[in-house]
């Protein structure tokens, strides 16, 4: 499409810009398009994919390196079809397979928002992709297979809030980009939507009826979680989800409520199995110490490993996580209620122990110290094995030490 002169800020209605700002927060555009402490929307964030590293583009309204010369029609085509203004195909790391469902109205508001940001002249680094994926026309095959354009039909049997939630989750918020499993070609599996996926080496939990959360989510708890990252005695956000929460805190409250309602509806009413898991988890959490719990159904395990895990817990973890020993200023999560212990693999637990939990920059919040370096790989693995055994009735994780070693990327 032809270049256009960058529209002046005054060309955009302020209310429209504000709507776009709220929508950009709901979509967390900044997570890929704003680098750490870099200028907003100037791009440069490395996005790791199984196919290589792709850098978020500059979407500030700068004509040479950003999208200052893009018309609204070009912007709409990029979101809906994954085609850049000059006609080259964008990589699906940019979730146009979700954005394709966006309404004209919302695209107009997003356009008004990005075109009124400060223009920044910045060329993000070149992508580093596995051969032959540097050859962009190949994406056309991917699009033919997986891109389903067009609006999502509203469900007449559901109310307006449900439909708003469905629209946001499936399009702008692109929850499935992390929370759905992907096939060998990196496309989300439609037969397993929101059934659990991966993000930057973290397991992104299932948001459907397979939800592993020991405490079943209510729509209200989810809404609180999505806006604050914290639900007492239930969940605290960590890993890539922290950025999402940080962004959703600035989105429209009613939209976040709608997202929470739709996600909760995907989980459905707790099955008897999930209810039993909740009861067991709450009963375990009521013990003064995790060490006091008698594992009921746990299969035999290596006594030396369990002893080491128990020792690590007693000396490094119990000071905050055992009942009655909470900090004065906040309360550490009761571990049998922590979803990280109930997941199919120990990656998230290992990441959290290693890196700890810290609030986003400039935000108040709970803080857990990083144990990177304090614990050896063997000690960390033993702790994870012991926590799983004490805190849940789930089968033991396999290959924990190997997972620890493979995820030891941080120095």
């Amino acid at each position, binding site marked *: 499409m032809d270049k256009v002169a960058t529209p002046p800020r005054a060309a955009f209605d302020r209310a429209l810009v504000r709507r776009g700002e709220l929508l950009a927060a709901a979509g967390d555009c900044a997570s890929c398009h704003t680098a*750490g*402490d870099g200028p907003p929307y100037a791009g440069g964030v490395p996005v790791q994919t199984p196919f290589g590293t792709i850098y978020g583009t500059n979407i500030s309204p700068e004509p040479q390196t950003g999208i200052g010369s893009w018309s609204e029609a070009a912007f709409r085509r990029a979101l809906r079809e994954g085609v850049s203004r000059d006609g080259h195909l964008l990589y699906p790391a940019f979730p146009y397979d979700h954005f394709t469902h966006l309404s004209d109205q919302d695209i107009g508001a997003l356009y008004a928002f990005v075109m009124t940001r400060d223009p920044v002249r910045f060329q993000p680094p070149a992508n580093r992709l596995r051969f032959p994926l540097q050859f962009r026309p190949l994406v056309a095959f991917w699009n033919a297979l997986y891109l389903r354009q067009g609006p999502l039909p509203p469900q007449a049997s559901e109310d307006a809030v449900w439909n708003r939630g469905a629209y946001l989750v499936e399009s702008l918020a692109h929850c499935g980009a992390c929370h759905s499993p992907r096939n060998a070609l990196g496309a989300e599996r439609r037969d397993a939507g929101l059934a659990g996926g991966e993000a930057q080496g973290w397991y992104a939990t299932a948001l459907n009826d397979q939800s592993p959360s020991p405490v079943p989510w209510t729509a209200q708890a989810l809404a609180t979680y999505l806006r604050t990252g914290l639900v007492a005695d239930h969940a605290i956000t960590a890993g890539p989800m922290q950025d999402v929460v940080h962004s959703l805190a600035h989105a429209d409250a009613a939209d976040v409520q709608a997202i929470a309602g739709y996600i909760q509806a995907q989980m459905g009413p707790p099955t008897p199995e999930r209810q039993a898991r909740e009861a067991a988890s709450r009963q375990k959490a009521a013990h003064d110490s995790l060490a006091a719990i008698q594992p009921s159904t746990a299969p035999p395990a290596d006594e030396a490993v369990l002893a080491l895990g128990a*020792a*690590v817990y*007693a*000396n*490094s973890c119990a*000071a*905050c996580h055992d009942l009655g020993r909470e*900090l004065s200023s906040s309360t550490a999560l009761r571990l049998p209620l922590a979803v990280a212990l109930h997941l199919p693999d120990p990656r998230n637990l290992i990441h959290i122990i290693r890196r700890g939990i*810290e609030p986003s920059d400039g935000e108040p919040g709970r*803080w857990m*110290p*990083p*144990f*990177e*370096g*304090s*614990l*050896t790989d063997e*000690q960390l693995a033993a702790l994870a094995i012991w926590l799983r055994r004490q805190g849940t009735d789930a089968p033991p994780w396999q290959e924990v030490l190997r997972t620890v070693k493979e995820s030891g990327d941080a*120095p």
Partner: protein
Amino acid sequence: MIVINVNGRDQQIDADPATPLLYVLRDDLQLNGAKFGCGLGQCGACTVMVGANAVLSCITPVSLVGRRPVRTVEGLGTAGQPSPLQSAFIAEQAAQCGYCIAGMMMRAQALLERNPAPSETEIRQHMAINLCRCGTHMRILRAVRRAADDFKAAGAPGDHGNGQRSL
């Protein structure tokens, strides 16, 4: 009896295995550089190095240290012969009450040994765990920057004759 290696010397410790490394350093070995701040790994005053990492010694049981070498601020240099990092802290006058400084130095030391030329962002992210209640953070950041720049100006890492790197 537990044996740990501190500042290059093996030390026999008669302590409960659950004892935090910090207590062993201060009470058994009279190495009082590392400080007790919160005891919960929330402030960084107790930071020492274990192996190549800066760790919070108040939440690290001595029995988990094993054969990994422990380094404290006393192992960096002396008042008469401060290490380059300590000299940078002096040059920037990066202390007010000084309670946090030993921890700050050991965390910075771990960074500079791993990455002798850190960016401003890397320094800030790495140091974020350690708190200073006097508000001397800006000077502390400058001191770390200065130590890295001095290191660069001096060229390749030297050796003080004690097997330790020259930062």
